[in-house]
């Protein structure tokens, strides 16, 4: 099976005002792959995702999504190419109920999951569907932030620190969900602090440092690179 590139970031520089945060990021995610970005705090992983969505300040370089150059596109145009973004801060709307949060993102592609399928995958959300968005627990909010981009038909999911601050059972449940999403053919870019969570899920990993990729590691190289990872990430 030959790999089809779905996302290619080349020589990406991104700025917040005057601060130069990304210094030439290069990464590729193939169709159906789950790729993880690892790195220390402040390495620039969130900024990479925000730059892909067009949410940082000035950007230069190239970002190809499904064959489209997006470096000069507005965020809503980028999303409409079939990208779903689950931000680090979760971004649940407090002025919308749980179900309104779920239904808010418009369609950006064909073949999204139905509301029934989503409620089957996230039974808690069904129970809480009438609650105000920000009155839900951290775990529920995280489920909601993921669930709402599955309905839209997005094919590429950008998931930022979804396991952060959650109880082990919930993290385990999230891992099952990511596996299920891979089965369904989603292409996933996963930013993680939690190496134990990301390692078994990711087909490949990039270690990010100072706004650049410091190393690429394939799943089968994990054992041989353990020393390096230990030194780099403290895992």
């Amino acid at each position, binding site marked *: 099976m030959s790999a089809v590139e779905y996302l290619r970031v080349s020589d990406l520089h991104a700025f917040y005002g005057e601060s130069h945060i990304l210094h030439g990021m290069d990464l590729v995610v193939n169709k159906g792959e789950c790729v993880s970005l690892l790195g220390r705090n402040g390495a620039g992983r969130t900024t990479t995702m925000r730059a892909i*969505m*067009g*949410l940082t300040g000035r950007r230069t370089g190239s970002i190809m999504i499904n064959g489209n150059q997006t470096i000069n596109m*507005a*965020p*809503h145009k*980028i*999303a*409409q190419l079939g990208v779903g*973004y689950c*931000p680090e801060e979760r*971004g649940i*709307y*407090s*002025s*919308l109920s749980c179900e*309104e949060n779920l*239904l*808010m*993102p*418009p369609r*950006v592609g064909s073949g999204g999951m139905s509301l029934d399928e989503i409620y089957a995958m996230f039974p808690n959300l069904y129970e809480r569907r009438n609650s105000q968005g920000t009155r839900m627990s951290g775990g529920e909010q995280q489920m909601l932030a993921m669930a709402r*981009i599955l309905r*839209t038909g997005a094919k590429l999911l950008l998931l930022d620190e979804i396991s952060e601050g959650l109880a082990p059972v919930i993290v385990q449940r999230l891992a099952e969900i990511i596996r299920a999403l891979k089965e369904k053919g989603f292409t996933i870019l996963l930013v993680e602090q939690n190496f134990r969570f990301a390692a078994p899920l990711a087909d490949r990993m990039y270690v990010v440092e100072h706004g650049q990729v410091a190393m690429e590691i394939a799943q089968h190289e994990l054992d041989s690179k353990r020393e390096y990872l230990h030194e780099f990430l403290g895992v």
Partner: protein
Amino acid sequence: MIELFGVPLPALMGQLMLGLVNGSFYAMMSLGLAVIFGMLNIINFAHGALYMAGAFLAWMGMTYWEISYWWALILVPLALCVVGVIIERAFLQWLYKLDHLYGLLLTFGLALIIEGLFRDQYGVSGQPYPIPEELSGALNLGFMFLPKYRAWVIVASLLVCFATWFTIEKTRLGSYLRAATENPKLTQAFGINVPLMVMLTYGLGVALAGLAGVLAAPALQVNPLMGSNLIIAVFAVVVIGGMGSIFGSIVTGLGLGMIEGITKVFYPEISSTVVFIIMAIVLFIRPAGLFGREK
């Protein structure tokens, strides 16, 4: 004759109705301000001048081009929506990242310019606008005569306010609007054209002021100063209701109009200041306003 607290009932009801008419204008105007503030983060000081422009456009339409009241009700808000879109594209879009103060100063300047243009052309004396035939005369309610036009203003503005509230709180478009008000960047990252929504929100807010202006034309005299007379009270309404609350601005607008009307009967000396007295009290007890959320 029936009396209530020593006041004849028809007189009391008459003032109450007049208060409700004023309250209808307060409600429509503060509703527009609230929606604009939520989306654009701008306190639209030009709102009163645009309301005046709406009344004048209706008058000019009738005087120069024989456009009837009913057509004015449709055409004037459309024209003002276009004006609003032009203002947003030309000026406001550059101010969103700055402090509220810049938007306030800019729209204040716009208000002075718009008002100045009409004063220059028409002076400060009022232009009469006839009540449309279908709405002239009064209804006999038994305990009072209710001028039909007043009843129409109240009904029309309640309908407009309800439709606006329903659209924002209960529809899909409204959920985009609320989402974009709360977190514009993320909402755009979900694929919604937020800059377009912001532009149209301003256009619609301004159209609402224009519609209020057309409704006001036959009830009051069309006068270049009518906007600045109204807007001061409307800002007090907004402060009392809480900036940015849709429901709050409607209820507060109607309520304060009625309170003003009742004050005219029982203590006319303070009827023109009662709104500001209430504002001071509310600010003292609930700084965020009756319906506002504390930040």
